[in-house]
């Protein structure tokens, strides 16, 4: 291109370099994991010595395989998103559509602070609340899948709130007037028009929330994840999770084979996240 100033060229080069560095970093990490973990990917890694069918039908417990950790991770993602999604969308709708400017400003600030709370602090708070509830109200309550899921929901809900709010506020002003112009009430406008129109951008926030729920270790190690628990039988039981397994293996591995298993677990976690992202992306395309 002719007549480009030195500043333009510099900015362009800088932008390209940044994009290249980030893309390379992702490829290097993924490549490193594949390089080390791919050879460990086999049925033994997941089921150990338990027959596959019997393990899947929960007839026999899997010891030494990753099936319980995979099941725990999936249950954790499902539960935390189930808690965070309705609350996050409702709060986002409130901020975008009903809150007065002053309230919007204050609540917006609160949610931004919430998003910046370190996960270890959320984990500690969850643990403290569990102990308090255990001592004063529910003697049977211990750190468990439910507590972890609630803590993770608290951690990811700001992403859903903000993405819902921004998605609704970004809708063209004429789109907001279409249904009221036909006689729709505010609630009908929201339900039939605004939320469906904003849905594809709301899904973006949900994708971020899924990723965070899947990978967070600090919260779950304080609120219910354990090294050996088997497939969780209820939301009140302890559970295994892939991020915790990876962390635990990296910190405590006894031999090279155990470390390789950690790489395999990391690769499986990457696949799970990839699969969930692809699913969310498919929903995003469908709602468009």
């Amino acid at each position, binding site marked *: 291109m002719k007549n480009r100033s030195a500043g333009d060229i510099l900015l362009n080069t800088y932008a390209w370099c940044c994009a290249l560095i980030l893309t390379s970093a992702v490829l290097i990490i993924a490549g490193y994991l594949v390089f080390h973990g791919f050879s460990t990917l086999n049925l033994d890694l997941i089921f150990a010595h338990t027959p596959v069918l019997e393990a899947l039908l929960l007839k026999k417990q899997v010891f030494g395989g990753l099936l319980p950790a995979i099941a725990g991770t999936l249950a954790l993602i499902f539960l935390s998103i189930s808690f965070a999604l309705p609350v996050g969308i409702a709060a986002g709708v409130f901020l975008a559509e009903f809150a007065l400017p002053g309230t919007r400003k204050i609540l917006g600030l609160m949610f931004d602070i919430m998003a910046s709370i370190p996960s270890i602090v959320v984990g500690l708070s969850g643990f403290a609340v569990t102990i308090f509830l255990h001592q004063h109200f529910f003697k049977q309550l211990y750190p468990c899948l439910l507590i972890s899921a609630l803590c993770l929901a608290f951690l990811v809900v700001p992403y859903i709130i903000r993405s819902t709010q921004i998605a609704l506020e970004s809708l063209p002003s004429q789109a907001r*007037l*279409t249904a*009221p112009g*036909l006689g*729709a009430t505010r609630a009908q406008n929201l339900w039939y*028009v605004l939320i469906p129109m904003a849905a594809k951008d709301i899904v973006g926030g949900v994708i971020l929330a899924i990723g965070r729920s899947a990978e967070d270790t600090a919260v779950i190690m304080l609120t219910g994840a354990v090294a050996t628990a088997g497939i969780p039988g209820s939301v009140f039981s302890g559970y295994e999770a892939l991020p915790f397994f990876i962390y635990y293996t990296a910190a405590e591995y006894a031999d090279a084979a155990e470390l390789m298993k950690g790489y395999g677990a990391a690769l499986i976690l990457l696949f799970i996240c990839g699969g969930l992202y692809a699913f969310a992306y498919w929903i995003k395309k469908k709602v468009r």
Partner: protein
Amino acid sequence: MTNTKTKIKVDGLNFFYGAHQILDAIDLDIPAGTITAVSGPSGQGKSSLLTAFNRLWENIDGAKATGRIWIDFGKGLEEITKKDYGVHHLRRKVGMVFQMPNPLPMSILKNMQFPLKLAGISEKNMVLEKIESALKQAHLWEEVKDRLSNDARRLSGGQLQRLCIARTLVLQPEVLLMDEPTASLDPVSVEKIETLLLDLKTRCTIVMVSHYMDQIRRIADRNLVLSDGKLSASSQ
């Protein structure tokens, strides 16, 4: 002018966005069964004037209107600016078409069903009859009758605008507010919509914002020019 009976009467209408006043004590009588064009420079409050007739300004942040407006829905002039006047009922009687076609994110059929659903009309045969009739009035039926379940957003610009007009007509409004309805369309679509408006004025009173003097001369019964917050009749 085809009729001298007053359909809309405006008395001392002021319109504000925040502290900025854009309409200043407007008085106006609009005869029934006519097309009244409102023209004038951009940003003078032409669209705002339209939103006063169906109180849609109440859904716009920072907008405020004062003054009184009456509309005759067959039982004499009713003051629609009274606080307790049913605004959702009003908007079904006073339809509005916007400058840019604004299909709802659903199929052609569902777009047409939507206003009926809001009005509590659900009897299947009646709904389908009303939809067919409105699409025929909008000269769109032949083009879409075989693909009613398709996403409305796949229609062309001209078809979309006619769909939006049909969606308004399905409620059989008595007043039609049109905010530059042909601004984004090609000449063929413009001609179709102008023909449609001339057809419609036998059933509806139309108030239309337009920048195009040729169009105003072709279809409007009178032209009102809005400038500096005041309305004056043009000598078109």
